[in-house]
């Protein structure tokens, strides 16, 4: 038995991999690499509902200071961007990016009839649906559907995680989730799975089993592709040894390899700060700040910063007033960060929320997040936003 297996591993080596690959995947293997200049989107999901008001601090707003006698960040502590606006004190790298014209801040982003359940609101953000519709595919998944109908390239979008988010599931294509590229490679290279895959003849059929085999073949092929790409030009820069730091380093290695990936997705959390918000938000922000800092430096050093757009979001913001436990409860509209070397508009992209006319104690939304997605899809990824989002959007001008 052992000999057989070993033999199989040899046969399964890279040189002959294409012989064993189902036909429909071979075409994909031969495609030329995407040239430098390949624009990449990195979505940074702040899970749990980040408190936007203590992220972009309205340092001259009395309503803010009255609503948060204990939690407000003082003007002295905030990293000042202007007379009106300060950043959370930990976000030093964001401050430098702002000064360099590589940071955009969009305020009061949300959607009508907001939902305060994490899961539901995240569902709405990930599927880009209205709050009263239920869509089972994600906006990046539908981008994949539109971009590569029939081309079977699940590596065009990658989530750096063990489990795939709904955002990356399309109606026809699903992206790949991989946190540890080597582990995925090892799993996919299990000789039994490989042999099963190559022995199944009809992967084009309509039967659900053909769909499973197709997914399996794609996973095996993509795992090889991604892992080998990531070793071509591994990032040698110093990254923090945090989860997010490692994820950003993985993304950098892939970006430098000129893999065909257009969208990376990564999450940080939990920002659900009902209790003792200060410490928790600070800890997460330090992780975010340092990881983004290392990533941007790495991209700049490799002359790729102009090709990358980082976009952050959270499923909702938090209430304007603090609660009784040194925290804040679920709110609605929130701010988003955009980081990149080729932003058309920089700094504050719109006004800070005034806090004068709150809706039930919450910031009313002024920008629909679906317009933001449309802008990114249309102007950055050059995709048909109307088709993907099934709506006509008002595009913004920061790209």
């Amino acid at each position, binding site marked *: 038995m052992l000999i057989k297996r070993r033999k199989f591993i040899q046969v399964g080596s890279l040189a002959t991999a294409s012989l064993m690959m189902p036909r429909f995947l071979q075409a994909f293997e031969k495609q030329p690499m995407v040239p430098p200049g390949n624009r990449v989107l990195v979505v940074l999901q702040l899970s749990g509902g980040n408190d936007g008001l203590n992220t972009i601090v309205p340092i001259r707003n009395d309503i803010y200071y009255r609503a948060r006698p204990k939690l407000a960040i003082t003007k002295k502590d905030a990293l000042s961007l202007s007379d009106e606006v300060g950043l959370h004190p930990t976000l030093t790298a964001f401050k430098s990016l702002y000064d360099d014209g590589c940071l955009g801040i969009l305020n009061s982003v949300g959607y009508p009839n907001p939902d305060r359940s*994490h899961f539901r609101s995240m*569902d709405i953000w990930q599927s880009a649906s209205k709050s009263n519709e239920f869509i089972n595919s994600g906006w990046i998944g539908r981008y994949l559907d539109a971009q590569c109908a029939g081309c079977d390239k699940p590596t065009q979008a990658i989530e750096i995680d*063990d*489990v795939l988010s709904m955002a990356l599931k399309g109606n026809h294509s699903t992206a790949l989730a991989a946190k540890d590229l080597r582990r995925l490679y090892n799993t996919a290279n299990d000789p039994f799975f490989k042999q*099963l895959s190559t022995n199944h003849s009809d992967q084009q059929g309509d039967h*659900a089993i053909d769909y499973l085999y197709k*997914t399996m073949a794609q*996973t095996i092929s993509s795992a090889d592709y991604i892992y080998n790409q990531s070793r071509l030009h591994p990032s040698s820069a110093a990254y923090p040894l945090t989860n997010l730091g490692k994820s950003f380093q993985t993304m950098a290695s892939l970006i430098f390899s000129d893999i065909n990936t257009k969208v990376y997705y990564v*999450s940080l959390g939990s920002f659900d700060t009902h209790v003792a918000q200060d410490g928790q938000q600070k800890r997460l922000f330090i992780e975010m700040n340092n990881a983004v800092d290392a990533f941007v430096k790495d991209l700049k050093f490799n002359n790729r910063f102009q090709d990358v757009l980082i976009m952050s979001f959270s499923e909702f913001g938090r209430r304007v007033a603090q609660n009784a436990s040194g925290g804040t409860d679920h709110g609605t509209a929130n701010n988003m960060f955009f980081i990149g070397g080729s932003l058309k508009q920089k700094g504050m992209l719109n006004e800070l929320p005034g806090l004068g006319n709150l809706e039930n104690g919450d910031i009313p939304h002024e920008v629909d997040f679906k317009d933001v997605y449309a802008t990114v899809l249309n102007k950055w990824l050059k995709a048909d936003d109307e088709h993907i989002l099934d709506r006509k959007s008002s595009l913004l001008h920061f790209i």
Partner: protein
Amino acid sequence: MIPNQLKNQHLLWRAGFGPRAKDFDKLSANSQHSYATSLFNASAEIPPYLDVAAKEIKELMMGVREPGRKLKKVLSVQEKKQLRIASKVALHDLNLTWMKGMVNSEQQLREKMSLFWHGHFASRNINILYQQQLLGVIRNHALGNFGQLLQEVSKTAAILNFLNNNQNRKGHPNENFAREVMELFTIGRGHYTETDVKEAARAFTGWGASIKGEFIIRENQHDDGNKSFFGKSGNFNGDDILQILLDQKQTATYITRKIYKYFVNEEADEELVKILAEKFYNSGYNISELMKTIFTSDWFYEPRNIGSKIKSPIELLVGIQRVLPIHFENEEVLILLQRLLGQLLFYPPNVAGWPGGRSWIDSSSLMLRLKIPGMLGANGELTTKPKDDDDQMMGMEENKKMKAFGKGGGQLLKAAINWSKYQDNFSKIPREKLTATLSSLLLQIPKSLNTELLNGYSDLSDRENFVRTTTIRLMSTPEYQMC
């Protein structure tokens, strides 16, 4: 010719959670008719109520004074926290208790039907008492009358709270419940107008639940003006609205199509759906009768239906436990596996329930499914981590008290499988026929897999090892994901 055994297994997978190895002898001998009859007979009685909520929780909840409806007014911060933590633990207990029922209960059909309704009447609610109550209603009426099921479900605290009907008041309507009753519970999208939603919401004003979970009608919040709904007008209340919806044939069609897609084939055969819906409607929504018609029809056993469905994570995990005598030392791994595979009981993704079908499958979930049997067989380690669920955690740190960690920091599966008991079921099978026998028991599309390639991966040292390794490999295939 489709083998009799395959047909029986088809019935057992669809009307339950798959065959047991110990029934192996009967599988080829009995007729579908006799299997169907015994499935219905076994599920005839109302099952015992699943009650896992600890005394502590009940006392906390029952001590609450009405009418202080909002929890925060009557429970201290400490008590609320205590309740949340206890509720979360109890929800896991309820999950595992119910799952055990799916594995061991003779009421296979009732539990399967209940799982269907659990997704149909989806509710995310961390209150254990409410969830327990909703599950009780569903299991009681799973095979009864759909109208009665709908009426009782619509009056549970779990559903009314989840769909915000406690906030639905005269002059300040909250349409969420009214909309979902139509869109998801009865007639489906496209068969009602926005006016219907508004008018129904008015009729449901005042419907709510007490903190203890009892249904209450707050008369002072009820809008008793005239309403127009589906061409009728009158001073309708919530019960009237539900009745008018049940009077619509479209409700029977919508429910029948969903049942067909779940129990027969993802691709609905509209001709059959029409005939079945007509019968269902004329029977006054008798669920049991509808299911009997399905499971005793010749078309149910046609090749296009057999092995055509991707098992849901629950079907997969329960099915493995039904076929293998398996004991989990650390039952929490079953919760973890549900989360990783995308179907955690009592936590549906949204009010529309689990979409099912191909949506269960992506590269990560498929590779994990293929690896699970091997990990179970060798005390493997689950190194993948599920996503955080902030609704569950409520700002607390993720539960760190997992019991068994492996070298990779993951959870150990710690499953003990009684292989000698399992292989006794096949003692009469000659060695050269073992692979084919096991394959026919485990796979619903046996022809798809070339079993010869298994030979290279089976342990030939003795019979038990051969049965063990061949079984594990057969379960580690895409074919095993189908039922």
